[in-house]
């Protein structure tokens, strides 16, 4: 069995375990009696899934002998890893296990799309991507995507909190504060990723900014998160309004990944689909 096949196998295993995590987290969200116990089980599943996914991503890198970020499939599985990683990292320091469903759901959806629609066999990079900047630019983007995903999950909860009876979900202010902190972490990394991308673009295409669709949407994402950070310090804009901005910003990330890669022609056409 080659490293590539093993990687695929592990991806499927990850999806299975994440589905288990999703079920236990969902149960915990509705039922307050055994909530804590179920949340812990869900988190254990999530850790397991994270570990296996990490191995899968590394194996994928080994089988293609490069950083595993050369096409949409690889980007999707690594982003899924980053989402889980960001959540688990925060959960080590803060009590956020109530967030489980809202983090596991997007990552398992992403993995599902990866294996069904986006799948590409492992292979070497096209010349356009052969640059040290790939590692710098893309890894920064992926890390900030992970953190923005946690921000997204928290913002969803801010908006849903009043409508549903969730057990163990803290007050809006607390959710809001945590969401703000994840965005604080992610925003500079995203900024860095955009700058690194500009430097790379200057080296590869002869201009640092050319309003290529991918660049444009990265800029739009940046603007909306900038607005979000400002909203938080503007009177009357924290809470639900800020959460709505955060969701818009996240939507722009999702569009940049799927919409721009699959529907719009541009220079960043490395989907490999």
């Amino acid at each position, binding site marked *: 069995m080659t490293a590539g096949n093993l990687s695929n196998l592990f991806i499927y295993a990850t999806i299975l375990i994440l589905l288990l995590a999703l079920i236990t987290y969902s149960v915990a969200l509705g039922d307050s009696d055994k909530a804590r116990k179920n949340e812990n089980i869900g988190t254990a599943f999530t850790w397991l899934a994270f570990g296996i996914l990490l191995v899968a991503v590394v194996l994928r890198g080994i089988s293609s002998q490069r950083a595993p970020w050369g096409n949409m499939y690889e980007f999707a599985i690594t982003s899924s890893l980053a989402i889980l990683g960001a959540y688990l990292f925060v959960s080590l320091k803060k009590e956020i296990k109530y967030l489980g469903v809202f983090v596991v759901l997007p990552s398992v959806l992403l993995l599902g799309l990866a294996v069904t629609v986006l799948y*590409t*066999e*492992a*292979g*070497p990079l*096209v*010349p*356009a991507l*052969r*640059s040290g*900047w790939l590692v710098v630019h893309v890894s920064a983007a992926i890390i900030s995507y992970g953190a923005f995903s946690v921000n997204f999950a928290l913002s969803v909860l801010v908006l849903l909190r009043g409508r549903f009876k969730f057990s163990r979900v803290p007050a809006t202010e607390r959710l809001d504060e945590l969401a703000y902190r994840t965005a*604080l972490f992610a*925003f*500079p990394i995203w*900024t*860095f990723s955009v*700058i690194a991308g*500009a*430097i*790379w673009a*200057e*080296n*590869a*295409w*002869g*201009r*640092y*900014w*050319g*309003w*290529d*669709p991918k660049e*444009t*949407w990265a*800029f*739009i994402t940046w*603007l*909306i998160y*900038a*607005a979000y950070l*400002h*909203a938080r*310090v*503007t009177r009357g*804009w924290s809470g639900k309004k800020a959460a709505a*901005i955060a969701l*818009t910003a996240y939507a*722009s990330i999702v569009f940049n990944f799927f919409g*721009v890669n699959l529907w*719009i*022609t*541009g220079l960043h056409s490395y989907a*490999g689909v």
Partner: protein
Amino acid sequence: MIENNIQINLGLGGWVRWIWRQLTSMTTALWLLLLLGLAAIPGSILPQRSASLIRVNDFKEANPRLFEIYDQLGLFEVYGSFWFSAIYILLMISLAGCIVPRIKIHAKNLVEPIQEAPLRLLNQTGYRAIETNLDLEKINKLAQKSWWRTKISADGNSLTIEKGYLRETGNLLFHIAILFITIAVAFGALFNYRGTILLIEKDEFANTVTQYDDFRAGGLFRVERMPNFSFVLEDFEVEFERGPNQTGSPREFIAELAVTEPGLDYQQTVVVNKPLVIDGTKAFLTGHGYAPVIKVTDDAGRVVFDKAVPFLPQDANFTSNGVVKIPDANEQIGLLGLFLPTGVLDEELGPISIFPDQDNPLAFFSAWTGDLGMDSGIPQNVYRLETENLEQIGLAQLAPGDRWELENGYQVEFVSVKRFASFQIAYDPGRIWAFIGSILAMVGLMFGLFVTRRRIWLRLEGIGSSQNKIGLAGLTKQSEELLSRDLTWLVKKIRESEQR
């Protein structure tokens, strides 16, 4: 009417002030940020002139009426349109109006003495009291050593220490840097130039405006500023994936250039991501394709055409289209060509290339005669042959080396195939400044987001024979966690320095 009264009372100055206050408020800045994002969207969906004139023209042909309306709205040049510019200029004004007063306040805070501690600390954040044999003077020295800004009150009974001025400094630096980047981009756009060239193997390019296939320059660009150089494309190597995975994906593009600068000749290898750099001008390898060599002799045996003609690739397997125009023969001849590096005849799709490298080079030509319209004075697209008023005089499939006799006695020979490489050549004096601006913005952002401004008060609450009772408390707008850590740190520091 009441409303009118208010207007009158405000007066012109009042209105200006009111508008200025609105424009520089955080809420307006917020809306402008979101609006700018919204305004950027159409440019990512509709083709833009700056990126691809061809795709804009395609849109025009497909939807002529919609094109008119969109064009009026500037939707094909979104990022240069008046409404896009208006939004970001308003945003920049709002930004400037916001930071200038803040710079003043920050400067004042940095210069002015810091405030003395309140009389009672008991109800302040993180209050605690310790007994120590150090006096405030000693603690003051300790704090100063660790980069706190300090102030002992006039009566000597309280001490205030402060940290985190870098937060506001960073904030301001970030916003100034954003303004700076915007100006650098505008500056670059005024003086830059950029163009594309298509160079067939062994051909030479000299850096003058006329040699470019398309050339754009900023409003203040001067031709004299273009550096004097030329290069020959000595060799161009291309490699494609032949394995079962991602078959046909490009693997290697290597262009070997012989470069000539005044008084200097050298060889340089240019690959994607590694341009040729001369005096701030960079030449990037951006694409490639095939240029079949075609030789045409007339009915008298005279050679009327003998050249490599670049054929433009239409798909990833380099099914390419090209045109040969021979206006000065006895009879004007035009050839429409289709070149397939690995040609097959597909039952449904017709002649098509199935691999990007030359495994089975094939060309299909149709020959046309009549007035090619090249003497009409109207500029023509060299990659296009308008066949409306022409008469077709033949159709043939040729492999390299094949000859084809036309019915009018002309002979077309498909001699061989060369490769061409396309280069983007660009110069932008604003880029270094935009880069510096980005670095400053990044630094400012880190300080602005992660430095915490906090203040700690210490007050002498009782004097014993050997021990002083000192109360400590603090103030912060950001992280109380960090404040409490600072208080603990300070107490520890005091304990360490106590005289035994």
